[in-house]
């Protein structure tokens, strides 16, 4: 390759990378982060994003350059150079993706292990789903029930899932955590809210007629406000 072509190729790659970075940075891709787990998941998200932008820039540069430079003239019936392969190149593009996905797998596995570990003295809450509403109870507070999930800020929470009829899925986008509720199983989900506020609870597993409307709220409160609410009799 001539030096000029290499420069052109690199310029296209940098431009493609810049466009992809703009797409990644200008819109708000992720909602507010409101839990410790969300922070870690966002880290994986951006880690993967930068790797993807890197791969995308290379592929886009080669594609755009080829489409631009290697068009045949309308009256040109000749063939291209008979290149059958290049072992070195093939080893490179097998090895580099292997390394990249291995890195992603390691980072993901570490984050997963951290997010799965509940902190000391977690607050236990039972989550109940049925067509088409959510309810919650607090075994540590005399099985106090509520139709809104109230949680204290900065305390580890273990949610235990109970499905009464069909599959549902518990999702709070601001917590980034999601767990299906399955009849007969009681999987748990760990969340450590770290931002006071009100966020939506969304059912993300198709559960029938009212699926789109199966919503609830989670209110993250200051610890003493939570204690006050939780120890009060009634709803």
């Amino acid at each position, binding site marked *: 390759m001539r030096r000029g072509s290499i420069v052109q190729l690199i310029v296209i790659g940098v431009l493609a990378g810049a466009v992809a970075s703009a797409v990644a940075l200008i819109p708000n891709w992720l909602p507010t982060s409101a839990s410790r787990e969300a922070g870690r998941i966002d880290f994986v998200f951006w880690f993967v994003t930068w790797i993807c932008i890197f791969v995308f820039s290379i592929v886009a540069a080669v594609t755009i350059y080829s489409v631009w430079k290697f068009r045949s003239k309308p009256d040109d019936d000749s063939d*291209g*150079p008979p290149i059958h392969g*290049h072992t070195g190149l093939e080893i490179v593009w097998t090895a580099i993706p292997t390394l990249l996905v291995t890195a992603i797998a390691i980072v993901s596995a570490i984050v997963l292990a951290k997010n799965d570990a509940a902190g000391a003295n977690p607050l236990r809450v039972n989550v109940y789903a049925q067509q088409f509403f959510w309810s919650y109870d607090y075994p540590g507070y005399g099985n106090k029930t509520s139709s809104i999930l109230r949680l204290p800020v900065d305390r580890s929470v273990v949610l235990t899932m109970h499905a009464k009829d*069909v599959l549902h899925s518990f*999702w709070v986008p601001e917590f980034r955590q999601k767990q299906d509720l399955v009849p007969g*199983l009681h999987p748990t989900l760990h969340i450590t809210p770290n931002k006071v506020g009100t966020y939506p609870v969304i059912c993300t597993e198709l559960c029938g007629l009212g699926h789109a409307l199966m919503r609830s709220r989670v209110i993250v409160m200051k610890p003493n406000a939570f204690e006050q609410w939780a120890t009060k009799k009634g709803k």
Partner: protein
Amino acid sequence: MTSIAEREQHPVHHGPPRPPGGLRRLLYPGFLRAAWMAPLFFGIGCGIVVLCRWWGGWHPIWFGEIIVLVGALTAAPIGFLAGIGAFDYWVRYAIGSPTQPEDHSGHGAYSWKDYFRVNTDHKVIGMQYLATTILFFLAGGLLAMLVRAELAKPGMQFFDNQTYNGLFSVHASLMIFLFVIPAFAGLANFVVPLMLGAPDMAFPRLNALSFWLLPIAGIMMLSSFAAPGGAFAAGWTGYAPLSVHQPMGTIFFNMGVQWAGASSIMTALNFLVTIITMRAPGMTFWRMPLLVWANFTTSLLVVIATPFIAGSQFFVMFDKVMHTHFFDVAGGGYPLGYQHIFWFYSHPAVYIMMLPGFGIASEVISVFSRKPIFGYRLMALSLMAILVLGFSVWAHHMFVSGMAPWLRVPMMITTLMIAVPTGIKVFSWLATIWEGKINFSTPMLWAVGFVSMFVIGGLSGVYLGAVPIDIHTSDTYFIVAHIHYVLFGGSLFTIFAGIYYWFPKMTGRQYNEKLGKLHFWLTFVGFNLTFFPMHLIGTQGMPRRVSDYAPQFATWNLFISVASFSLGASTIVFLYNMITSMRRGAPAESNPWRALTLEWQVTSPPPIFNFDEIPQVVGNPYEYGVPGARHAILSGDRAATEAEVRSH
């Protein structure tokens, strides 16, 4: 099949024998016989149900759901198949009537009517497949337009929730089971025997049967809208226990999948036997075109995986109609069992819907770049690697399902590893284009469009492979974006590439190049405007499969709906081009693309038994630019003779 020499001694009939006149015509295979045999079999099915229920003392004796299942969805289709004559030869053989194994009266098409009967010619069957699947593609596309119309604004517009859930469920089922999978089977049906230098598929009568199962499956899924309670509405994934508790429409899906699945398995067996046993002399595995390799690996996937979805749907149906407890916790059932069995098919199914497209892309990219495919052997081996790895990743659809938590990390590793062979394919296509003499005719536009869109779909797949990101994005619009980049930008783009590429060979006419390019650009732009923003609203918090959504997503949804209508409209250009070119297009040469593979060395359309003589394969299929290289030798080399005639 007879050898060519033998056939010359016993010239074949031209077309089927004339149907007899009068009442005897009712016994002649065809739609007329099907018109009374389907109701007859329906009656027999009803009789069996009523007798069993009366004998068992189950009330009511006449029970609608069972009557529909046994009479309408099982017995009547068998009657229809028997009526059109799909079983005639085997029945005659079984009862000891004289049969003629080399009877070619069902072979070839001499008028349009020959496309509407049981035909044993792989080229006719290929066209039957394509025409049928395009019809279901249009039906599925219209359903998607209705979905987008409902989603244009928050709140409910046109449909109630049950109907809405039915719309997207039937949309996905038609697109997957009645379009992408069988459209690839149709293209391969036409092309694979030609590429191998074979006169037909190994089992032409089985081939005919596999086609006729398809319209049955498609009509079944569509007609579920007419079932009491509406169409099946548990998504194409039909997760239990929701699907068990749905109205009767569920059974239409359960049974439709059986018919479509049976069709897939039969075709795949046929491809395997054809590819293994019917290669022309000299066509070693390492000389096969990559399209043949792709269909070889796809067929292995189909044969191994499809029985799993058949099982999963039978279990759901048994739970529903026979009150078994496969997925019912109260009876000792296990709901996650459904998902494991379902995805053990449905993840390999993603590759069933992608590998044939890889094959088409390899053909088109090599021919239109005028260069050998880069790293041919590694391309074939990476297909095999995807085949093997594809069976070890199913639970990545279940990272949030509540399955054993330890299963997530191993499944994440295998999932991410699939990016490696897939990456090898993408990089090899790019290396093939590199320094080529690229001709951007319509097939090449689709092929390069496919590579670029598939890269985006592959990268979003890497996000989803990483468990922590998947936990956030699972069941959101991010998934909807991802699957459409893979199945629309991937599979559909390559189907279009294949249709335009082989159109001259199939019809003997050339399509309109300007309209072909217009179709590509309209689709390419409409596709990206429709599906790219879905990534964003997904990560921001919009779940999938909802008829209503939070107001914050209103602007993007309106934008997506408008874009999707323009995407839908681009199909009109395609249909117009196909129909007018088929009737009035310029006559096509035998080898308009100057390709080396065997299908281009015969006339367009090919002779009735493909080759007037058995081709001798002497080299690799992609030796563009190699001076004097040949893939195969045909002594009466048509292309050479034609060129000579033209030059005089």
